[in-house]
Structures are given as C-alpha cells and as structure tokens.
C-alpha cells in the first residue's frame, strides 16, 4: 500500500469508533512501566491505592497477546496500533500526544478504550509524500472517563 492509498483508506474510516476491552489493570504492570521509565513507584504499603504512571494507558501498544511473529508488519509493529484501519506496511512513527487526565488509573480497574481516526492529511516533504494521522482515544472505566488522548503519527 503506498502513501496515497493509505491516505484514502484512512479517510474512508474517519471518525468511525472502535471499542476494545483492555482488561484489568495490574499493579505489577504499573511498577514495571515506572521502572522502565526510570522513576520507580513508591514501595507497596498496606491498603494504599496504587495508581498507574500518567502516561501508562496511552503508551501501551498491545493489551492482549497479539499476533504471532509472522503476522507482524515488516518493521515489527503490530497492526493493532491502528485497530480502526489496516494501513498495510506503511511505516508509522509517533509524533506526540495531547492528553487530558481526568481520574487516576487504579490497580484492578477494568478499562475500555474507544478509538477513532480524528484527522488524516496527505503531505509532501523533501523525501516524498507522507500522511499525518491523528487518533482520538478515550480510556474509561465503569463509564467514567480516565484519559482522553489525541495521538499523531507520521506514515511513509
């Protein structure tokens, strides 16, 4: 799929919302994420609530076992990064995120994500055509919003 085909494919899916269950949040994963960032969570304390680091929900790319290796894209990425649309082997690089954080993410919470393509633009650069694709992602638990995220990628 070339860039223009990817642009047309993404445009056809604009604002169609996909919903996926992310499962139950685990303290161990919060702690591993914090350690991987280089800023460990405080030691466990009896009865104390444990919250996810603020970028945890929007940084995790895969919430389930994912495809076997043969079905990954050539660059190693999982097509799940864009569940709303399959852009084939288009190479995607993250440009950034804009987050609104409403409530802390608690150990044990069951989280749902709603994701849609918010915008897609076809651009010309020095090294050829590329697309800018923005995803709107809403994470919620028990019907309450936790994090709203606009995430933008460059696709070549």
């Amino acid at each position, binding site marked *: 799929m070339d860039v223009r085909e990817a642009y047309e494919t993404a445009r056809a899916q604009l604002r169609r919302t996909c919903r996926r269950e992310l499962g139950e949040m685990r303290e161990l994963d919060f702690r591993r994420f914090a350690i*991987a*960032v280089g*800023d460990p969570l405080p030691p466990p304390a009896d009865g104390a609530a444990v919250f996810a680091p603020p*970028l945890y929900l929007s940084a*995790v790319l895969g919430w389930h076992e994912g495809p076997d290796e043969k079905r990954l894209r050539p660059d190693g990425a999982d097509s799940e990064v864009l569940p709303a649309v399959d852009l084939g082997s288009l190479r995607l690089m993250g440009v950034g995120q*804009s*987050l609104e954080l409403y409530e802390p993410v608690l150990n044990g919470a069951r989280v749902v994500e709603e994701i849609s393509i918010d915008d897609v633009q076809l651009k010309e650069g020095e090294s050829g055509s590329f697309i800018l694709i923005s995803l709107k992602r809403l994470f919620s638990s028990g019907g309450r919003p936790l994090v709203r995220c606009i995430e933008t990628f460059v696709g070549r």
Partner: protein
Amino acid sequence: MQAVKKPKVGDTIGPTVWRPTTVQLFRFSAVTWNAHRIHFDRTYALKEGYPDVLVQSHLHGAFLAQTVLRWAGPGSSLVRFTWENRHYAIPGDTLTCEGTVTEMQGETLTCELTETNQHGRVCAPGWATVAIASC
C-alpha cells in the same frame, strides 16, 4: 529541584537529566508490548538512516512528565499534558528536561517544558498543567 513553596510564574522546573540505555529501551518496549524494530534492532535502525536504535516516542513524553511531577512534589498530578517528538534520541544521549511555570490558577500551574540533548538540540517540547498537592 523540587518545589517547596507555592510556585509562581517564571519559576524554573528541573533540570532533570535522563540517560537512556539499550536496556531501558528494551524494557520500555517490553512493558508497552511494542515490537517495532527501530527501538531494539540496531541493524534495522542503521538501514533506516539512524545512528542507533531510537528512544520511543512515549518514553520522551514520560521523561518530560516525570520531570515536572518530581519537581511539583508527592501527590501532584497531571491534568493536561502534550509533547511533540522533534528529533530522535539514542542510547548514550544525555537528555536534559527542564521548564518554566507560565501560569498559576489556584492550586494549578501551567508550564512549558523542553527535552534537549547534549548537542543543544531540542528533542521534544512539552506543555503541562499540573494540580499541586499542597502549597
């Protein structure tokens, strides 16, 4: 440096220095279930025109977020946060995150942040609104 009294406009945040390693990048990809080769496969990264594997987009964001939260103190929390990836970073880079308070409203501050490498190149600007736990 941590805020010990009520912040005011113009206060400096940080600096906090982060030095990513290949092990860190591997663990961050593992915990985020990210198999993108650009973050662990040096041969692939070189073929793509980079000098080494690349720090993940979200790790840049996390460096900025943790910088302002460390400075704001325990119990503080992000209300809004934005960052943009402008330039890549690789293991062995020295990334300095710092910022400035631009607005105070009650117990909430807004700030601008930058992550700069050892060559003075801005890798990621950021903007945060933080609820301060206590002043």
